[in-house]
């Protein structure tokens, strides 16, 4: 029941907004549907906390402690982003950057994007997971090119082609997985693609096939996560699309893709009985962290800067999942949540800052705190939070990941530490003059939508000071589910 509501509400929203998305009230309708989805997801979460994992509709959908927290997070950030996009997109429309028809496209695709992500999270079927993730790409391609500028078209084209090729690799991986499982589970029905069934028999799956499958799955879905060297679509797509879309791409889609990678890793690790999948994740992770840190220095565009920072953080999370073990998994899940909240908050603030300055070039954005103090402080606090300064929560998760790395993978700890240090210097050095420098330009002519920014940052702060016991249990349950080899 709750599952159905969570999945169907955004779909219904997409349909309604496909007709009425150009109306004056469409942004409110968009936010209302997102709120309804959030309520349904909240009910689902409450139910799962009370009753434990559940399977619905002939085992095609399932909810356990790993995906339910991502469902709640996705619905929450989806709602706050809809709130932020209300005034933001109105201003864009008044400036003539988007027409009424494109507003309709935007609102409808926004809801559809939410629906596809929720399907990808909730489905138990590896095939449906693939379909949903591909649909998520398709629904956002035209949003990245919403402004129809040369740069945005190029970004959308790259996004489509690279993710399309990536996801084709993942399909091959899925075929191999099905091939290995079909012998044990039978070809009739969809048994052989159900994750719970696969998980139950993972020890008997042919290791050779699964090893090969994992390479394809990791490269395929890893493209969507933005792991280096498969990342080159990410900064472009984040920088050229409308800011609300940057926020949901960075805060949600990357998480969903990583979630699928981890689901695959659990299966393959069980079959291979070795740490190879974990080592591959660690390799990709550390490479992403280091490369991203080096590229952060060279950015001139503020949205590109934070897109690269997303690559860095996805690298950290992937590395932590690669190490495995209860503590690292716990930290990785926590970091996923915190990165999602913080990064979307930053993009909200960045959106207003860029609207005020009329440009995304960092050299032309100055003195935010003088002319629009709330935007300036929002950006500053968000930046401090994402850089892992205590007492914000990111500090706690990064600290956990680093200390675990020192114990388990001592070679990686200095690399991680150096990369985090470089990223700190690069981002802080760029943001500081934007917030506190000599003001230029004019004030933002309309009131910014900053409630989402401060709500997100407040949550991040709260999680840094105190993690409620039920949430900790929840993470622990998910971490145990992901498990790891001893």
């Amino acid at each position, binding site marked *: 029941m709750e599952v159905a509501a969570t999945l169907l509400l955004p779909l219904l929203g997409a349909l309604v907004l496909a007709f009425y998305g150009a109306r004056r009230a469409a942004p409110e309708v968009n936010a209302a549907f997102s709120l309804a989805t959030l309520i349904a997801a909240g009910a689902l979460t409450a139910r799962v906390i009370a009753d434990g994992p559940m399977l619905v509709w002939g085992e095609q959908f399932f909810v356990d402690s790993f995906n339910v927290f991502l469902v709640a997070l996705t619905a929450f950030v989806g709602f706050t982003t809809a709130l932020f996009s209300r005034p933001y997109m109105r201003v864009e429309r008044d400036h003539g950057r988007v027409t009424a028809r494109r507003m309709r496209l935007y609102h409808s695709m926004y809801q559809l994007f939410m629906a596809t992500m929720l399907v990808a999270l909730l489905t138990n079927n590896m095939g449906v997971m693939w379909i949903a993730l591909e649909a998520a790409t398709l629904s956002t391609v035209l949003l990245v090119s919403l402004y129809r500028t040369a740069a945005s078209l190029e970004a959308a084209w790259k996004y489509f082609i690279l993710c399309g090729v990536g996801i084709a690799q993942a*399909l091959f991986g899925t075929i191999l997985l099905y091939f290995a499982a079909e012998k044990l589970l039978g070809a009739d029905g969809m048994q052989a693609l159900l994750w719970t069934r696969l998980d139950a028999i993972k020890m008997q799956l042919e290791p050779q096939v699964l090893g090969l499958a994992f390479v394809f799955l990791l490269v395929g879905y890893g493209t969507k996560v933005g792991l280096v060297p498969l990342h080159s679509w990410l900064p472009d797509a984040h920088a050229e699309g409308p800011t609300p879309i940057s926020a949901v791409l960075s805060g949600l889609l990357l998480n969903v893709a990583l979630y699928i990678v981890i689901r695959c890793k659990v299966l393959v690790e069980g079959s291979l009985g070795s740490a190879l999948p974990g080592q591959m994740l660690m390799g990709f992770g550390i490479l992403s962290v280091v490369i991203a840190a080096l590229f952060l220095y060279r950015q001139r565009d503020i949205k590109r800067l934070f897109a690269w920072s997303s690559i860095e953080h996805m690298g950290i999370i992937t590395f932590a999942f690669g190490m495995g073990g209860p503590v690292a998994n716990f930290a990785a899940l926590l970091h996923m949540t915190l990165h999602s909240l913080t990064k979307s908050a930053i993009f909200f603030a960045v959106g207003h800052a860029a609207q005020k300055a009329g440009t995304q070039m960092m050299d032309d954005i100055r003195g935010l705190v003088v002319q629009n103090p709330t935007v300036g402080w929002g950006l500053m606090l968000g930046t401090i939070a994402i850089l892992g300064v205590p007492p914000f929560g990111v500090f706690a998760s990064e600290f956990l990941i680093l200390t675990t790395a020192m114990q388990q993978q001592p070679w990686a700890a200095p690399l991680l530490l150096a990369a985090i240090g470089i990223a700190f210097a690069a981002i802080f050095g760029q943001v500081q003059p934007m917030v506190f420098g000599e003001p230029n330009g004019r004030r933002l002519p309309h009131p910014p939508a900053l409630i989402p920014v401060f709500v997100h940052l407040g949550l991040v702060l709260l999680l840094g000071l105190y993690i409620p016991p039920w949430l900790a249990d929840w993470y622990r349950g998910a971490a145990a589910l992901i498990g790891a080899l001893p």
Partner: protein
Amino acid sequence: MINLCAAVLLLLSFAMISQRRTVALVDLFTAQGVTLAVSTLVVALGTGQRHMYYSAALTFALKVIVLPVILRRLIRRLGVQWEAESRLDVTVTMIIGLLVVIFAFGLAEPISALATTVTRSTLGIALAVVLLSFLMMITRRKAVSQVIGFLAMENGLFFAAASATYGMPMLIEFGIALDVLVAVFVLGVFFFQIREQFDSLDLQHLESLKEK
């Protein structure tokens, strides 16, 4: 019979990577679709798997009728019938293509050994088709050619699924077909946007976003 189809499929892939003209690529893509549908039908007849009949019908409808029609209409409306790749070194591409095929066979060897289907020997070819299409996407500069490469890659994947496991479950195949169809529609819209902006579908214009 299956092996014959597989061989034709591989040949068509090679023809595609060496073909410069966009319209001819659509013809080759259609031929690939026909081969795919025939081979699926042959497997269906041979094994009596009911869902393979549906799968063959779906392949025929989508890859022989719908997609080529859409592509042709797009090409006509965009007026790029006579467009050809200018920067394409056929000899080098062919040699790389050969290496790719050897690599694909090597990769598929251990998997084919485990398969129980009658079609297992064709898995190497399926993988080769996927990788050749990938090669085609890398070497092309025209937007339409890249998309055909993308679709050919999906053909290879479909063939891989058919030869290793007699196809994925029906519902999944429908989902994948739907995604492909939507992708082509989205790209159609996209082509017009690109042309409106640049007056051409040459991807050379799309190379300004780089890390400086």
